[in-house]
């Protein structure tokens, strides 16, 4: 059946894609599994999707200012100091600052087939 074939092709393709960037993520939230992820999942997904976390980046100060903005304008409660530290450590570790670039290369998904191996390939 064509649907089944399309589906298995798709899943093979996508599984191979994820294998290349193996980092364990929580199946329910998509958050990288690491110290503090449960606290983040429990605290930060009540009002917005975890996708708003996983697509953003920043050091501790940047993440702290986002929390303050949510507290000042979006109705987020004051977090116990220890919990906030745990959350900030997790976010700045797993969703840390971007590498500096005034114009990064086009994303992999938009690149044509390359006749050459790249720096990411083993010799």
């Amino acid at each position, binding site marked *: 059946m064509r649907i089944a074939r399309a589906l298995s092709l798709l899943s093979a393709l996508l599984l*191979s894609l994820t294998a290349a960037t193996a980092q364990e*993520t929580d199946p329910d939230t998509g958050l990288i599994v690491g110290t503090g992820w449960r606290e983040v999942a429990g605290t930060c997904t009540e009002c917005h999707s975890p996708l708003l976390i996983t697509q953003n980046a920043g050091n501790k100060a*940047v993440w702290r200012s986002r929390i303050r903005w949510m507290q000042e304008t*979006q109705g987020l409660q004051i977090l116990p100091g220890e919990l906030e530290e745990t959350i900030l450590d997790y976010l700045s570790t797993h969703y840390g600052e971007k590498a500096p670039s005034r114009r990064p290369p*086009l994303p992999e998904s938009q690149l044509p087939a390359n006749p050459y191996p790249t720096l990411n390939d083993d010799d």
Partner: protein
Amino acid sequence: MRLRELYASDPGAADQRLWGRRSSALTRRGFLRGSGRAALSAALGMSIPFARFMPAGLVPAAFAASNAPDVIPGKEGLVILNDRPLNAETPAHLLADAVTPNRYMFIRNNGIPPVTADPATWELRIAGESCLRPTTFTIADLRARFEEITLQLQLECGGNGRSEFVPAASGNQWSTGAVGCPSFTGVRLRDVLNYCGVAADAVYLGYYGADTHTSGAPELDPISRGVPIAKAMERESLIAWAMNGEDIPPQNGFPLRLVCAGWPGSVSGKWLNRLVVRDRVHDGEKMLPPSYTVPERPVAPGSRVPDEDMRIIESMPVKSLITFPESGISHDFRERLPISGHAWAGDNQVSAVFLSTDFGTTWVPTALQSGANRLAWQHFSSWVQLPEPGYYEVWARAMDDRGRSQPMVVPGWNPRGYLNNACHRIAVQAV
């Protein structure tokens, strides 16, 4: 039957058959249960965060990136950036139509759209301290009382392109797809405002919609922005009930929305139920810094800019998008490569669009058309001949009628990552 056909014939059944996913007709949200959720997760090779909130009609980002067929009615091929609130952008090659079809119009929600919206009973209240004759209209009243207007109007999210800013700016990490130019039908905002009387001291028009805050807090508005009276009074500013001759899609504001084109999309309120004529700059949600504001003077990347040094974004900067070919193709270098797309420039006209295939060393002009009307995007087309096999990028650079061009690098950093109008790039391997 192919996936696309299956979805075209009966989307609900297709969802059910492929994923065991049931989407509620009432809420338009999908519910993935048990094996259905597992099947979709397996096909994706990853889980779908908050699958139960995933609206029907949208493709998970991993599918879209893999050129997988569309899923679901209403929208097609959009890439989901955020599923609560819902935000989804359109890949550049799907924006090739001169007039953006409803299924390809991006979604930028700040809150949760109303679950029920009946155009027959929907009411729009016009009031505010500088409104002389506060009035409530039904959509039928608007149609009966005012001239009906259809215009093609360009809407772009102020944060389109945010993903390229370093240091990273908070918010949805849009690449290039938070833009579209459908045709809207409605009445002129100024006809309605004049009917209700605009006092001499009026400064700003603010809107409120029927969407609700994602926290569920009833006292919080998800967003309530607007435009200065002068922009509201332009002949292209509309209160619209139709998009491309059909009902406005639910995620784009059904049954009624404001359209003030050329400014950040957030000024064009959706699910519109109240307008306020203000004697001061409107102070609704997301009118204040850091939202939809940029530094008054340029700042170094990463600067913490105090609120008083920020100004509200008005007209958007000149920009263009290559919609053909899709980035990532291989092309026979002996053949001409046709290139086409659209350009727009906020309140201004685009005067030229140039292409470069040598990383900005040389530029060639394209054939540029006029827009269908003011504030509609303009179509450009040309072709290039790639000299020999190799990796090329095609860059497009538009210039507005005041001589302002798109930068080739990411423009001035700002705290929330607005107004990235860097030239669009696509990659081609000539073989």
